Every structure is written in structure tokens, then in C-alpha cells.
């Protein structure tokens, strides 16, 4: 008993000494109890590791140079787990390589959106006044438009390529991050430790990036996880419409598009990329939603 008590005291002391460690431990503990986080994280980990490992896994070439006529439209078997498509390519391998494209585009696009949103939102929220007026107005304007419509317009104008899709999604998705960041910065800048650091002579840039930003990060990370899910949906929709990733680069959206004419005789061409796409989007959504519940229980079920 005595041992137990001293252990508890030691733990309490340790917790008090390192607030960050405590909250990180706490977050992990609470996350494990949240079913959404567990399911979401599992899905995300499986898909990300399959995508990363695709080049070293013993799978067929996703874009073979030659067409093998005897391999065309084979149904799923031990040799081709997900069957083959109308050009005799292995669907399983293309689904995995497609995951690389989807995840790459989505994470880069969300990273750039996050950077734009953080810089603009932080500037607006921290300084207030005229910069806030201009930036908040711009954020609201972009926020009004469905990001898919904006991304479609930009992708159509820039022409189809991987870089342009990333660019198009970044330009159309940042407003959400900007809005969130601005709101957070507005409330954090009123806190006392900000005043304290200003009294100690810290410059604006230092206060913004060393003090305000770290205190606003949690909701941004949640939003980024949901954002990756949205970006994957947008990327695959653009590829489906022919303005995204271009063949022969494997992409889920384009695979689904090519699957439509073969729905009757070879439903596996569309089905497997579709299921993978659904599970990936679901995984990132669950992770984001669950993380939000863990980090801020008051916001439970608030998303729309």
C-alpha cells in the first residue's frame, strides 16, 4: 500500500513537472478508449503502410509496357487477388499504387492549405484591425464556395497534372483552416501569458509563432485529418472527371471511371478501388472525428 501511495505521489509530481507529457499521455489513454479513433487509426495505418510498401511488395507492375492479351479481364484469383482490368493489368497492384498517388496528393494539398490558412488566420486574428478586416473578408469569400467547385475550376484551367491537382485543392481548401486559426488566435491573444511575454519584450513574430500558434494547434490537427479525407474525395472526383491524375498513373478515380463500361462482365475493376477509397476516406474521417471528441469533449457531435 505504502509503495502504491508513493508511486502515486511520484506520478503526480511527474505530471505536474511536465504538463505537455501529461497531456500527451492522457490523450493517448483517452484515445485508446475511443472506438472511432481506434478504428480510424487502424484503417489509416494499414492503408498508409501498404501505400508506402507498394514498391517493395511482391506485386505485379501497375503499368506494364506490353499488353498481355491472355491476361485481359481475368476475375479475382490466387494470382490476381483483385482480378485484371481491360488492359490486362493487375487491379490489386494498381489499387496499392493508386493509394500512393491519392495519399501524396491529399497530404501535400492539405499541408499547403494548412500553411496558407495558418499564416493568414494567425495574422488576422493576432493583429486585428484592418489586416483582420481584409483577411477575414477573403476567408469568408472562399469559405462560401464549395471547395470541389473551386478545385474543378482551377484544375480545368491549369490543365490536368499531379502538381496542378495539388495546387487546385490547396487554393480551394485553405479557407477552413484560416477561419479556425483566426478564431483560435483571437481567443489565445487575450490570455495572460501572451501579455507576460509581451511585457518581457518579445517581438510580435515570436509571440505569434512561439506562443499563439502552439496553443491553437490541436483543433488544426483534427481539421487536417478530416481535410485529408476531403482532399482524397476531391482528388478522386477530379480524376474520375478526367481533370485530375492522368493515365497511365494509377488513380482510384480514373479506375472507377474505366470500370463503368465493364460493370456487367468485370465488376471487380470498379469495386476494389471503390472499397479502398471508401475505407480510406472513412478512416481519416473517423480519426478526425474521434480525435476531436478526445481533445475537446464539449464539441462532441458538432460537426457538419
Amino acid at each position: 500500500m505504502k509503495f502504491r501511495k508513493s508511486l502515486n505521489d511520484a506520478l503526480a509530481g511527474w505530471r505536474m513537472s511536465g504538463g505537455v507529457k501529461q497531456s500527451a499521455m492522457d490523450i493517448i489513454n483517452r484515445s485508446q478508449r475511443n472506438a472511432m479513433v481506434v478504428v480510424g487509426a487502424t484503417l489509416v495505418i494499414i492503408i498508409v503502410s501498404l501505400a508506402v510498401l507498394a514498391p517493395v511488395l511482391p506485386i505485379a507492375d501497375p503499368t506494364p509496357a506490353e499488353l498481355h492479351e491472355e491476361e485481359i479481364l481475368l476475375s479475382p484469383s490466387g494470382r490476381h487477388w483483385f482480378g485484371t482490368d481491360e488492359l490486362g493489368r493487375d487491379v490489386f497492384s494498381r489499387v496499392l499504387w493508386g493509394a500512393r498517388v491519392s495519399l501524396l496528393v491529399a497530404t501535400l494539398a492539405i499541408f499547403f492549405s494548412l500553411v496558407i490558412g495558418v499564416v493568414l488566420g494567425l495574422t488576422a486574428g493576432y493583429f486585428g484591425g484592418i489586416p483582420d478586416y481584409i483577411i477575414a473578408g477573403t476567408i469568408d469569400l472562399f469559405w462560401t464556395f464549395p471547395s470541389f467547385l473551386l478545385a474543378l475550376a482551377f484544375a480545368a484551367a491549369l490543365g490536368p497534372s499531379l502538381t496542378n491537382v495539388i495546387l487546385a485543392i490547396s487554393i480551394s481548401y485553405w479557407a477552413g483552416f484560416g477561419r479556425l486559426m483566426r478564431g483560435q488566435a483571437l481567443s489565445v491573444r487575450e490570455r495572460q501569458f501572451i501579455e507576460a511575454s509581451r511585457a518581457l519584450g518579445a517581438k510580435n513574430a515570436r509571440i505569434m509563432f512561439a506562443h499563439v500558434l502552439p496553443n491553437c494547434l490541436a483543433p488544426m490537427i483534427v481539421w487536417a485529418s478530416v481535410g485529408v479525407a476531403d482532399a482524397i474525395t476531391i482528388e478522386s472526383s477530379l480524376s474520375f472527371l478526367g481533370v485530375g491524375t492522368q493515365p497511365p498513373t494509377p488513380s482510384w478515380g480514373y479506375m472507377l471511371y474505366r470500370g463503368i463500361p465493364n460493370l456487367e462482365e468485370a465488376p471487380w475493376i470498379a469495386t476494389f478501388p471503390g472499397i479502398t477509397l471508401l475505407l480510406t476516406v472513412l478512416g481519416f474521417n473517423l480519426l478526425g472525428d474521434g480525435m476531436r471528441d478526445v481533445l475537446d469533449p464539449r464539441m462532441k457531435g458538432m460537426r457538419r
Partner: protein
Amino acid sequence: MADLVSYIIRKLLLAIPVIFLATFIVFLMLYLTPGDPVAMIAPAHASAADLEEIREKYGFNDPFAVQYWRFLERLSSGDLGTSVAIGTLNTDVSYLLAQRLPRTLELMAIGLTISYSIGIPLGVYSALKQDTWTDRSVMVFTLVAYAMPSFWLGILLMMALAVYTHILPIQGTVGGFGSILLPALTLGLGNAALTTRMMRSSMLEVKRQDYITQLRSRGLPEREIIFKHALRNALLPVITVIGLDIGWFVGGAVVVETVFSWPGVGMLVTSSISTHDFPTVQGCILVLAFFVVIGNLVADILYALADPRVRLG
């Protein structure tokens, strides 16, 4: 009433910059397009001097702002330009749009109807059965339906209802009313997931209110409490987002129309992108953006009608 009118006027004024942004983006589209538009229009044997003459004549050498201003002038007179695609060469874009618009409106109207007639009852049911297995399955359904990209849902429905069972026609408009059902269902189901979640949380919120407890203590039958008193208040937040749903439907319509070859504005946009018919793409995007603006306006107005406090803000 006066405060409502001034509120609506304020919201109308706020919509103006949004419309300007739309025109600006649409204008920027042409500017960003790689390649020289003049070289594309001009015949192959045109000399450099000819190209320069065309550029001068059509104002391609003018500064950006001047070109944008001319574009706005043209738009304000209702001129959306003419198509440059082979099949519809020199047809007015406004004519093409007028042909397609009713199809998209039809699709959105039926889609919205489907979305609400699934979402509202399901949300209420789920809230009444809170924390049971039925509730949990409904929530899982909404999570999956929300994560499902609309084109993939469309393909699945197509397989289930057209390819294997032949209940509904697969694509196009030849099947009469039946042919709108598949695209509308696809469009409606994704949104139904959102409606269900909103309806559920709104109903749960209302159920906790004091006046419900008071009604219960007066001995009113549960059925009457729920459907006569609780539902009315719980419906408000769900109804007010109908405007935002319109915005959501605009993006969805582009994809769904393409999946089902439904001849609306959305399909016009994708087919025009593939034929590099930029005046038509611009016109379509403007019209769709206009829908979004109207949708947001409807949302604001409904919100103010439902909650008078908003009007003063």
C-alpha cells in the same frame, strides 16, 4: 418585420462580393490556361504578324484589369460568349445553359426531396432509440454514407438497381421519370447522412428541454409530446440548412450527372472541359456559383425567420 427586411438587404449586399469573386475566378481561369488562346483559335498557317493583329484586335495585349473590366461589361449585358467546341461552334453559351438548367434543377429538387424524406425520419428514430443498437447502426450508416464519394455510390446503385436487377434504366434520360431516380438517389443519399446526423442531435437537444419534461409530467402521451411538440422545434435547425445543402448539391451534381450521363449543367461542364470549350466552362461555373450564392442567401433568410435574434446581429 422591418428588422427582417433590413437583414435581408444586408445579406443581399454581402452576396455582391461573392459574385465578384466568382466572376474573377472564372476570368482568371482563362488567364491561367497554359498555351496561347490566339494560337489555338487561329488557323495553322497564320503568320506571327497575323497573330499579333488578332491579339491587338481582340484586346489580348491590354492590361489585366482592362481585360477583366471588359469581361464584366460583357457579363452585365447577359453575354456569356459563344462556344468554341466543334459540335456547338458559335452557339451562345447562355442558350446552351438555358437548355441544360431545367435538368439540373429537376435533379436537385428530387435529390433534396429524397434526402429529407430519408434523413428526417431516420434522425428522429435514431434519437428516440438513443444508445441502442438501432441507433448505433444508423450512426454507422451515416458515417459510411458520408465517406462514400458520390461517383462510387452512383456506380454501386447502378450495379444494384440497373445492371443486375434491371429495376431502373442505367443512364441518360430515355427511361422517362425512372431515369432521374438513380442520379437523384445518388445525390440524395450522401446528403441524407448529414440530415440524419443533424436531425438526431437536434432532437436529442430538444428532448432534454424543460418544457418536454413539463409536458410529460402533465401526463401527455409520449407520441403526442414527440410529434406535436418536440419535432417542431427540432426541425428548425435542419430546415435552415436547406440552403447550405443546395451548395453541397452543386458540387455533387457535376459528378453525379457525369456518372449517369444526365444532360444538365454539371455534365456540360465536364464535357466542355474535355473539349477545351472554355467559354462554356466559364458560363457553367458562373451559373453553379450563382446557385451557391442563392443557397447561402436562402439559408440566411430561413435562419432569420426561425430565430429572430439573428436579424439584429
